[in-house]
């Protein structure tokens, strides 16, 4: 039961957070867009709430480290070059594709956006293929 209940509670919390952001500010909780809008030029007046959202995420990490440290895993084992390559692909891809797991995967699907359904199906497929190749063809990295 633990294997279902906590993830479900986590998901419901994410849904409430996204709904609250929409209700309060009229914005979609798309984290790649919020991150880009904070650090890339041209953010303007939008930058303050975006920076606050990111500060909230970072603060949640500090609280998790205190309350349930196990939730944060044991850090990244991959070599630095691979970490950097993955980061560049996540950054470039999420901008070109107009969103990531939060904006497309939660909010977009939640409002039945055809673009988000297509995007989520696409990144799920390439992520599953990537894990298959890394783990079962190359035998891990």
């Amino acid at each position: 039961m633990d294997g279902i209940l906590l993830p479900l509670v986590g998901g419901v919390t994410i849904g409430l957070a996204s709904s609250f952001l929409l209700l309060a500010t009229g914005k979609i909780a798309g984290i790649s867009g919020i991150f880009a809008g904070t650090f890339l030029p041209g953010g303007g007046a939008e930058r303050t709430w975006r920076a606050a959202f990111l500060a909230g995420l970072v603060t949640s990490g500090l609280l998790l480290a205190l309350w349930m440290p196990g939730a944060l895993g044991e850090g990244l084992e991959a070599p630095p070059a691979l970490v950097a390559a993955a980061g560049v692909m996540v950054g470039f891809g999420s901008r070109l594709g107009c969103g990531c797991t939060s904006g497309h995967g939660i909010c977009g699907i939640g409002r039945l956006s055809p673009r988000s359904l297509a995007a989520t199906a696409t990144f799920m497929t390439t992520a599953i293929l990537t894990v298959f190749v890394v783990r079962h063809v190359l035998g891990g990295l």
Partner: protein
Amino acid sequence: MHVLSGLVAGLLFGLGLGLGGMTDPRNVLGFLDFAGDWNPSLLWVMGGGVGVFAALFPAIRRRSGPLFAPAFDLPAMRRIDRELLAGSAIFGVGWGLLGLCPGPAIVNALVGGWKVLLFLAAMAAGMGFHALWQRRRLGEDAPCEHLGPDA
């Protein structure tokens, strides 16, 4: 109020990711690995998140506007284009390499070790590269920036 709302939403979102186990890349990779010891937790997290948002979205959208802003700001694009699919495909490969996407990476920024910061710096570089490339290619910002008050 805008700033406070952003802070509360970010805090709640991050706690949800943590409760659901999504801040541990092993759970994410375990979900993506259908040929291994499959870990369904991401499915429950996504189900819970999508379910709640789908249930509340119509009621929120029926309001004349949000609480602390003049109008809703929703993606206006409808067309499924090459950019959407190519970008999502690239994103998925990067996500699958480590099991890390932007939200969990930011939650781990100060508590996940230096490699998380390297990941975030590389992510920002990838986004910056996209902005430059897009401006050269189209002479404007990315089409998905063209959001606006949804009519």
